[in-house]
């Protein structure tokens, strides 16, 4: 026990998490030492706009302060064997004062959808506020900054990749962007946008207005992104969404009281991974980033998911047999258009509870933004796609048919399916002479098969007064018809766990696949879990045992995790 206030170590301040390097928080003369000491091979350098420009008009790239010399930073990194990746914030960035805006531009506080100003506490306990990106002066200044940055990269022949990042946080399981704004500045800009559309929209219903507000927000985000892409040129690799753990208002308020703990953060890591959003722990206080939370972040994010996202423009490279990618049995489509949440949701149908209790986080939530990442069919992972009728548009309709025809499996909730697409599906079945089997189990279910492909249509509107247990039974029966190969875990409450997978290598030919289970106990209790191994699974390796006892019995595995304990277990899988 120490009797003094712990002082954050300098290394924690400049490397706040997942290989991010805050170059402005240390002297340029120390860059080499710091980078040499850092164990990782790739460093992520978020660009700090306000550090290079106080006013938004004039810029400093080594003209005045040596810490603004990005060329020198890249050179040093290369000399000490590190690869540099730049992150350029395209939305307010919660880890920077004023959300990253030069202080002369920080004029109007951005307000979240609850009309509360965004407040953020960073890893060093500094209080940051977020200012509106909808002020035209902010956009003009951003354009000047990225022009100058692009020119600087070009003149100095900086070849490092640069990704635009869109910052957000989790609220009630949903990813929300820090770009969301309901301030007067936003309202003024939105009313100008509406005036431009006046011919089409004389009087707007609240729903239409909500939809247009979403469209406007997206338009402005695309404007920032497009400008950055045009000005940066070849270095610009694309955009990534980053969820800052602890960035929500509720976590901010909890943090103020000083009672926040690691358990408050870990579920956000898994939410982010399920939604193909990069989790970042740079706001979490250094004191909490010891033990199990750091292991979760290193195992699941810094050393696996993040490199995979940065390596290519596709989410996962199935060809690379050395890399574990997230295990997903389900790809659940949720359209993000500001309106979709008003219709029947998967939450209403109790799907999340069922998936969590039976499959943990072995699912992906897909939106129109990430659909492309999931078009590639894995040669060894079989997915069940779940889609709502009200989300079906031309793109999604084609996606469903393509998936089905290629031997994929789709469950379509007909709720909200338009007449046009109902007819199109019927025509498709007739034209291809497909047999439609009908069954009633809590609702009407239609099953259509074609080779390995299956399309199941269920009528979500017909569910009446169903209890959570009824929904659980419904999903259990329906999903069982797909015969998924999986090992359920017993007594797993309070334990964080995550499944990953990779194809077997040439010296593992007895298996078809290797599945990796990472288990972490963030609680202060001892936990014992059991797994009944079916004939398709064998325990292959047990790795990184910390405060844990692993016992294997015939057809059973028992794992006892002490508080802060963790372990990784690899399973060989064969059919």
């Amino acid at each position, binding site marked *: 026990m120490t009797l003094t206030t712990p002082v954050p170590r300098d290394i924690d301040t400049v490397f706040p998490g997942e290989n991010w390097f805050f170059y402005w928080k240390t002297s340029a003369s120390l860059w080499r030492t710091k980078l040499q000491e850092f164990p990782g091979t790739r460093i992520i350098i978020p660009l700090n706009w306000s550090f290079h420009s106080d006013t938004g008009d004039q810029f400093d790239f080594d003209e005045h302060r040596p810490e603004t010399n990005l060329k020198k930073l890249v050179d040093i990194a290369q000399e000490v064997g590190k690869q540099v990746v730049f992150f350029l914030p395209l939305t307010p960035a919660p880890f920077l004062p004023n959300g990253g805006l030069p202080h002369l531009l920080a004029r109007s*506080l951005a*307000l979240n959808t*609850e*009309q*509360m*100003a965004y*407040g953020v*506490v960073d890893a060093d*306990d*500094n*209080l940051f*506020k977020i200012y509106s990106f909808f002020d035209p002066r902010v956009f003009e200044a951003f354009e000047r900054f990225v022009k100058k940055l692009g020119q600087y990269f070009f003149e100095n022949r900086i070849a490092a990749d640069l990704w635009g990042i869109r910052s957000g946080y989790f609220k*009630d399981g949903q990813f929300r962007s820090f770009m969301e704004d309901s301030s007067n500045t936003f309202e003024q800009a939105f009313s100008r946008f509406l005036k431009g559309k006046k011919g089409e929209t004389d009087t707007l*219903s*609240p*729903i239409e207005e*909500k939809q247009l507000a979403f469209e406007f927000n997206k338009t402005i985000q695309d404007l920032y992104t497009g400008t950055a892409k045009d000005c940066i040129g070849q270095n610009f690799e694309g955009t990534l969404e980053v969820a800052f753990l602890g960035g929500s*208002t*509720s976590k901010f*308020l*909890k*943090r*103020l*009281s000083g*009672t*926040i703990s690691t358990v408050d953060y870990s579920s956000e890591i898994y939410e982010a991974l399920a939604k193909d959003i990069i989790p970042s722990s740079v706001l979490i206080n250094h004191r909490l980033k010891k033990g199990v939370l750091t292991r979760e972040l290193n195992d699941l994010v810094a050393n696996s998911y993040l490199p995979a996202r940065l390596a290519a423009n596709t989410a996962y490279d199935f060809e690379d047999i050395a890399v574990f990618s997230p295990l997903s049995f389900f790809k659940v489509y949720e359209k993000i258009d500001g309106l979709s949440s*008003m219709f029947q949701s998967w*939450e209403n149908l109790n799907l999340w509870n069922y998936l969590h209790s039976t499959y943990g986080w072995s699912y992906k939530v897909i939106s129109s933004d990430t659909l492309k990442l999931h078009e590639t069919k894995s040669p060894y992972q079989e997915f069940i796609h779940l889609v709502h009728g009200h989300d079906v548009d031309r793109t999604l309709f084609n996606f469903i048919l393509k998936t089905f025809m290629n031997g994929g499996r789709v469950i379509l909730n007909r709720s909200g399916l338009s007449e046009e697409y109902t007819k199109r599906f019927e025509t498709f079945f007739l034209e291809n002479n497909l047999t439609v089997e009908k069954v009633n189990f809590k609702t009407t279910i239609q099953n259509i098969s074609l080779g390995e492909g299956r399309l199941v249509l269920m009528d979500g509107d017909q569910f009446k007064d169903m209890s959570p247990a009824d929904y659980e039974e419904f999903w259990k029966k329906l999903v069982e018809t797909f015969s998924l190969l999986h090992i359920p875990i017993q007594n797993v409450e309070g334990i964080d766990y995550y499944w990953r997978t990779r194809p077997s290598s040439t010296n593992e030919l007895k298996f078809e696949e290797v599945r990796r289970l990472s288990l972490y106990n963030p609680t202060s209790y001892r936990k014992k879990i059991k797994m009944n191994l079916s004939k398709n699974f064998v325990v292959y390796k047990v790795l990184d045992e910390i405060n844990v006892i692993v016992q294997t019995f015939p057809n059973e595995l028992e794992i006892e995790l002490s508080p802060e304990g963790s372990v990784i277990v690899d399973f060989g899988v064969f059919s």
Partner: protein
Amino acid sequence: MNDTEYIVGIYNYINAAPELNADSAYYILYLLDEKGLLDRSIALKIYEERFKSSLATTESYTNSSKMIGPFDSTDQLNQFAFQLCEELNAAKVSLLSVQEYNQLLESTQSAPDFHRDLLEKGNVMENIERKKKGFLSRFF
């Protein structure tokens, strides 16, 4: 059960369901105590039993947004906050509108100062009954 030291409530005057042509009303967005976000079950129970008004008949109001309300007036809000304070035997309750919250956040430079302002600069109501109770009241 340990007594709560303080409660902070943040509320807003909003139209929770404009698509249903509902009226605007007051809603509590967040309730905090010294342990973080307050367990909402007690607050919800008090609301359901003593404050649920005719405004709340529409299903849309009892949505999953975790707000507590609607309340007709700030008087009702104050009564609710004070009754919650009594129920939890808290020393005081500080009630702030989101506009007050935003002003405080804008003018504050550090997290501890902001936290202190939330406690001190809202509409603060003290639970005098708690002060009257002595040490022995915790046992009898």
